[in-house]
């Protein structure tokens, strides 16, 4: 992942496995979000009446399996990358607080003067990734209770699972909208789309937006600079 392509002006940011995992996740997540909204939102519930509901609920299970497969793929085929990302999203410090203070000016006005140097994931990316991991665990656990637990778990546990599943789904859907917006629509974020599709970013971009990570990769050069 931190491979340097010799003599190139590009840095590899995401490995093949990481990109594959991302897009498999994307497919599963979209399926889950759409079929979940059918059951959740009363105006859409008319679409999942009777056998249409069987199809939609089966789709929701396939979505869960796809997302689960993505997680397994990551752990088994790129364990180093997986644990490194986990370590990064659970590491929080003063720099994240500074980022949060400077972020509104950056995201609204493109003013990056107050932005502290960031690691491979910036604070915002860490917030999204961490939220995804936590809500995914909650959604998976409560989802399994509702899938396989009917009759064998206590009704109280089942009812709490429905509630937690709904809450976690709302949180991650809101975050997903932000994620999608930043990736596709925000005028300052265009290169991120290249990183997740093709895996690499321009060296200058990394130096500029992920300065701490760049320093880690090229310690001497940055000292010289």
């Amino acid at each position: 992942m931190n491979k340097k392509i010799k003599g190139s002006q590009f840095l590899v940011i995401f490995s093949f496995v990481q990109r594959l995992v991302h897009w498999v996740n994307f497919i599963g997540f979209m399926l889950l979000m759409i079929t979940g909204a059918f059951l959740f939102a009363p105006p859409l519930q008319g679409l999942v009446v009777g056998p249409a509901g069987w199809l939609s609920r089966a789709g929701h299970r396939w979505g869960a399996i796809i997302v689960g497969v993505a997680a397994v793929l990551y752990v088994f085929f790129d364990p180093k990358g997986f644990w490194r990302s986990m370590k990064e999203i659970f590491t929080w410090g003063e720099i994240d607080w500074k980022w949060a203070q400077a972020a509104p000016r950056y995201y609204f006005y493109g003013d990056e003067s107050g932005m502290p140097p960031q690691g491979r994931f910036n604070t915002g990316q860490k917030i999204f990734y961490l939220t995804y991991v936590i809500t995914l665990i909650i959604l998976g656990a409560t989802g399994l209770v509702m899938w396989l637990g009917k009759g064998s778990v206590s009704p109280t546990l089942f009812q709490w699972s429905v509630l937690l599943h709904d809450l976690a789904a709302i949180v991650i859907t809101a975050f997903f909208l932000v994620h999608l917006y930043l990736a596709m629509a925000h005028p300052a974020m265009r290169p991120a789309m290249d990183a997740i599709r093709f895996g690499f970013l321009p060296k200058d971009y990394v130096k500029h937006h992920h300065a701490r990570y760049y320093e880690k990769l090229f310690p001497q050069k940055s000292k010289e600079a």
Partner: protein
Amino acid sequence: MAKAMLIDPSMCFFCNACSVECKQQNSVPIGKNVFLTQMVIHEAGKFPKVKQRFIKRACNHCTDAACVDVCPTRALYHHKDGYVVLDQSRCNGCGYCSQFCPFQIPQLEIMDTFSGTARSHKCTFCAERVGQGYETSCAAACPFGAITFGDREKLIAQGQARVKALQSRGATEAHLYGEKELGGLHVLYVLEQRPGYYGLPENPRYPAIPKVLDAVKVLGYAALGATVVGLGVNWVIARRNIRAEEGAEKEEGKSHE
């Protein structure tokens, strides 16, 4: 006029005519553990002083029915005569009704565990028969008068009279169950003992979660709506500002040349 049934276990002989007639009337799937109504035995005491109590277990047709409120497809609804109808053609098998019912009555027939293909079963109150002016099939089948069908008001009076008769014969615990429970059940019971003795909850409560779920829906709309609006505002402002800045940078570059 609200309809109801009055169940009197003290008159029951456990003949099972009600559950047999019910299966026939309502085309209940055969060979599966599905019952719209079922006779249940409750034993108490130690040998040789053992007593059995029989009770007909089926949907109690609550006024405050959690199943109706949690059903996402409105397959469950209240009939104008007060009882709860399940329209199986609308049921998508989510099984919430079976898990939110304070009496744990609706049965989920799972056809496929993986895909979740399933449908719910519960007492239909013989809606077709009742609509044509007949009594429910279990009431019609009962040879001992342990199940009476009729107007709810009349049955309450009849049940209270029966309770008094039982009390005068020494059943001090005798009482009418279902008059006030959950906004009023449309199945009333004349019980000689505490409800727990028959496997009925002493104080059935409407579960807390369905109301929270309604609030969560509002919260969900608000949160997602606010997110979309916030992102839209950000897009408009950021696009203008960042474009202006880029334009300024370009012009600066030109002037340096």
